[in-house]
């Protein structure tokens, strides 16, 4: 007689798997941390998603050195409307931060801290890692690493789309 494992792992038994949704839609917030990443994220935002929303914090990256920068309005949606970080994080299941190697990713600390407070998972994506110098990449990594539960250094921007699809974003 076949063991239970042998019987149940067969291709024939796969037909009887329950075909009903097994998860609620995931609320994924994708935030570009700099201008080059913003262009990538804007293009992504035009595709069809299961509720993923897209933002930019590039104003923060382009801010002058400490002192003269206003904390108001640094996070916005792609239409330019100012968004409140805490509100956005509060309603997220996952926050994806997109940075470009060599650009200023200091917004990662603010976003990461908010996610940490709210116990929201963060993923960091660094684009252009393959062509960046070690020093350049290290600088961006050092800004992203403390705030990313998962950090991916991708050579091509098309990875982000595949990743978001894989995560059902």
């Amino acid at each position, binding site marked *: 007689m*076949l*063991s*239970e*494992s*042998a019987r*149940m*792992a*067969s*291709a024939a*038994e*796969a037909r009887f*798997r329950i075909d009903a949704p*097994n*998860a609620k839609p995931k609320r994924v917030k994708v935030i570009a941390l700099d201008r080059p990443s913003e262009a990538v994220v804007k293009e992504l935002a035009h595709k069809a998603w299961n509720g993923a929303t897209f933002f930019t914090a590039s104003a923060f990256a382009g801010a002058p050195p400490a002192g003269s920068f206003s904390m108001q309005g640094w996070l916005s949606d792609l239409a330019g409307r100012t968004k409140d970080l805490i509100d956005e994080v509060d309603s997220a299941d*996952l926050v994806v931060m997109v940075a470009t190697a060599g650009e200023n990713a200091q917004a990662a600390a603010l976003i990461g801290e908010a996610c940490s407070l709210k116990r929201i*998972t*963060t*993923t960091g994506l660094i684009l252009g*890692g*393959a062509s960046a110098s*070690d020093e350049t*990449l*290290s600088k961006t*990594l*050092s800004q992203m*690493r403390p705030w*990313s*539960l*998962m*950090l*991916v*250094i*991708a*050579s091509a921007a*098309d*990875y982000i789309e*595949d*990743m978001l*699809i*894989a*995560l*059902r974003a």
Partner: protein
Amino acid sequence: MLRREQNDLLTQTGPGTPGGRLFRSYWLPALLAEELPGNDCPPVRVKLLSERLLAFRDSEGRLGLIDEFCAHRGVSLWFGRNEEAGLRCPYHGWKYDVTGQCIDVPSEPEESGFCKRIKLKSYPLVERGGVLWAYMGDPETQPPLPEWEFATVPDRQRFVSKRVQESNWLQAMEGGIDSSHVSFLHRGDLNSDPLFRGAKGNQYNMADSRPVFEVVESAGGLYIGARRNAENDHYYWRITQWVMPAFTMIAPRGNHSVHGHFWIPIDDHNCWTWSFDYHPIRNLTDAEIAAMKDGKGIHVRYVPGSFRPLANKDNDYLVDRAAQKAGKTYSGVEGIAMQDASLQESMGPIVDRTRENLVSTDNGIIMARHRLLRSVKALIDKGEVPPGVDPAHQKVRSAAVVLPRDQAFKDAAKDALLARPGVAPASV
């Protein structure tokens, strides 16, 4: 999550499939050299990439990998007589050499030249590092011989085994790059398995059960780094190598041997899990080899006379619920290899990836699929040679290192991630 057509593309590797063409770009481990121990030894049936083949070593020591069935009436040549520089079908005496060329048809006059018109499909088969490697692709694009470090060290520094896994290759391979399951499924084995215990790195593992992951593309595939906190503003990094399409190498522990796997499709519902252990600069000890033969580390014990694990789905993997309850094993299955295989086989022959819910820590798997899909497309559309074919991509090592927190592992451990003859592995 993968769309159904993407899942089909990556899991189907038979002749004529895009995924099959990808696998046919590489030298693949086909048999252990010990399966053909001497000239004129019995032939061995081999099924690879959904093709039924037969391997034999002729009277001159030449290796052959040919269509399993006689061109005359379709008899399996496994019953053949391996003698006098060829394999003779026992039914009517047709004889084939290692290239599949028919060299004798006793019922036909020799001068008729009939046998010259009969040739079975055959593939190159070469011996390297205790493994017989097959190349099943276009002869025009046959790559250089494999240069994996384990295959180039002296025999005494290496141990290789293989086992049948009753699932598609991809779900087996994905287990090899899924670092986050180790803290659950394999907990307990670090301190008890003779091939792991005693390493300082184990303490970092036990002290920090919430590793943080970094995935970085390499020339041949991926580096998957798992970092844990270490002393004085340092991180303990375990860096796994994945080289396309089906090679994974796990970070070493202390002065133990380095180990890894190949996951090679037999057909779409079964694969060979190859497991190797080696040390780049020293012989393996008798005790280490005895432990590996006894199924410790990443190896298994077998059903006698086969490469089927002793714990298999027909005996419910010898699951021990008392050991599970007592915390001796997490799933009730003993041994790292079968802990993995039992769960991967339970998914069914080909897991339905349209229904999965991946999370952030699955980015190693997501990136591997992304690279596989991209490479298949580039191969089919443009004829681009996929990553991992170039022997330079194969000269890699996994590594376990302690680094300052501000350093990128791919740069700080650059040398440690390369195979360097005579240099000890980077291990903690």
